[in-house]
């Protein structure tokens, strides 16, 4: 994945460029960032609780939920992904997960996920882009499953409201075998 230079980050931020030795630390205390992290953790809890109907309300109408196969691509439209959901697909996915016809969803693993290692990738007046690391542990029928991923969330703020405009999940094994599961990342 492309790493922005300090100048490019500053351009996204619309703030003065940081000095080269400055890692951009301190921005986690920005109030918008705090609200974004709170939303990301709330999302994680809803997913572990499998409360998918509440989960989908966290997204903006044009929000994208993406699990790519190719670890480097930014062009999800012309690539094969594991998940490339707009609102319509997300809605169908949630319906499928809760309606009881899907045997894998009915028998899905219990999961517990931890998201940490937050870094601020960009802040504008009404968006915050955060990268983080996620470790998910699942358990089903005597087996543990572990899935590691690098996450990017872009959160859009409208007044008091905060919603997810993009969630990009880059699994550490995305281009190798990823086992089917009845839950969401």
């Amino acid at each position, binding site marked *: 994945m492309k790493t922005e230079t300090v100048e490019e980050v500053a351009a996204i931020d619309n703030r003065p460029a940081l000095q080269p030795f400055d890692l951009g630390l301190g921005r986690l205390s920005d109030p918008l960032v705090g609200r974004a992290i709170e939303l990301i953790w709330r999302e994680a809890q809803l997913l572990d609780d499998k409360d998918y109907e509440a989960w989908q309300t966290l997204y903006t109408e044009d929000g994208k939920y993406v699990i790519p196969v190719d670890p480097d691509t930014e062009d999800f439209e012309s690539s094969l992904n594991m998940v490339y959901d707009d609102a319509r697909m997300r809605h169908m996915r949630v*319906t499928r997960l809760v309606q009881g*016809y899907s045997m894998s969803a009915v*028998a899905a693993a219990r999961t517990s996920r931890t998201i940490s290692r937050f870094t601020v990738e960009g802040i504008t007046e009404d968006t915050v882009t955060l990268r983080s690391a996620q470790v998910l542990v699942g358990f089903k029928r005597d087996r543990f499953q572990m899935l590691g991923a690098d996450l990017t969330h872009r959160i859009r703020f409208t007044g008091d409201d905060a919603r997810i405009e993009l969630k990009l999940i880059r699994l550490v094994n995305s281009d190798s*075998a990823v086992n089917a599961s009845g839950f969401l990342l």
Partner: protein
Amino acid sequence: MTSPTSEKAGGFASLAAGDRVAAQLYTDPEIFDWEMEKIFYSTWVWVAHESEIPEAGSFKMSHIGLQPVIVNRDRKGNFNVLLNRCRHRGASVCEVPKGKANGFTCPYHSWSYSLEGNLRGIPYPDGYEGVTEKRDLPLQRLRVESYNGLIFASFKPDIEPLEEFLGDAKIWIDRFMKQGAGFPVKVQGEHKFRFNGNWKIQLENTTDGYHFPIVHRSWMASVDAETADMLSFMTDENAVTHALGNGHSVAVMVPEHVDLEEDDGTEELQERFRHIIDELSKTMPPEQVRRIIRSMHGAGYNLNLFPNLSLSMSFFRVLRPISVNETEIQHMALGLDGGPESVNRERLRIHEHFQGPFGFGTSDDSEAWDRVQRGAVANPDMPILVNRGLGREVTVDEGWKTSHVTDETGMRESYAMWKRMMSDEN
């Protein structure tokens, strides 16, 4: 309780009857080891599609049974399948899944090999003077032949020609490739996943029309009415499975899409593709637009090629046995090489909807196969039944045993081949 080893004393043949097989076929590690020898290392195994290695020097890593191979295209345009194992001390010479190279160099002591597998260089060669000759130590080369873009390899140097092995399946391979609608078919990307079950559970599933409305009910509920209707084959008497010989079979789910070049003009194009129809119509004649749109869901059938490949509607299903109770599956999405970008994208979205670890179909298939493996350990004396439709099976003019697509004709064909190969004295 019957021990698998005692059963084997009477030969593997006793484990597979025409309409049933012993459950040990899923669970006995010794049977699995013999299957590698007598099936995977004794027949033609699919290793690549030519679009995956498009240019001189293009290569991909693949497997035959448990053994790693490299498939490449050399400067003469020939396909080579080489064991991915240095002749010196056994290290793999390639760990890049796909790419382009002039040759392969072992990372351990830098022995280097050409695309054809010839040993080209040994560092500090004085230690080998009078000991070994480079020409005696190429990477092991396998027999390679291709048919209509499908590349197969075999460990058996004296195996029958590929076309003989494919037999009547060739007709169905040719029809399958017509979904390119005038363009060559290309692999656009792939999903890969593993399930906790024996490889033959997945082999069976490819021609199992019976499970479709049950296991895939949630997918059916999510697609548009026209697509759901297209796959409503349960009571369609034209939806049939043919046994094609040599373990191959074909399950026809959409009879009107068996040959995509045949079009009586009565079929309405699916409304879900309206935006693409409108876009293509700006530059293409209506017949060509119609041909491309009718091919969007692929061919109207799953063609199961024994032992590891299926041409399934609009994708390739490749199975790779890992152990007696673990199997890796690749679902390769197909597109039109040089075709309209919007069509290829739409095909990717259709693939994502059903296939892959988070697809609306694959997740449920995988769960069903896990459940077979878990249940099959209970009382190994109880057979696995593949007798559905035996009472209504007929032989059609082509000589193919045929029954309804929900019947188990395809599985019986696979197991007949399994039995033949496992009983083979060679």
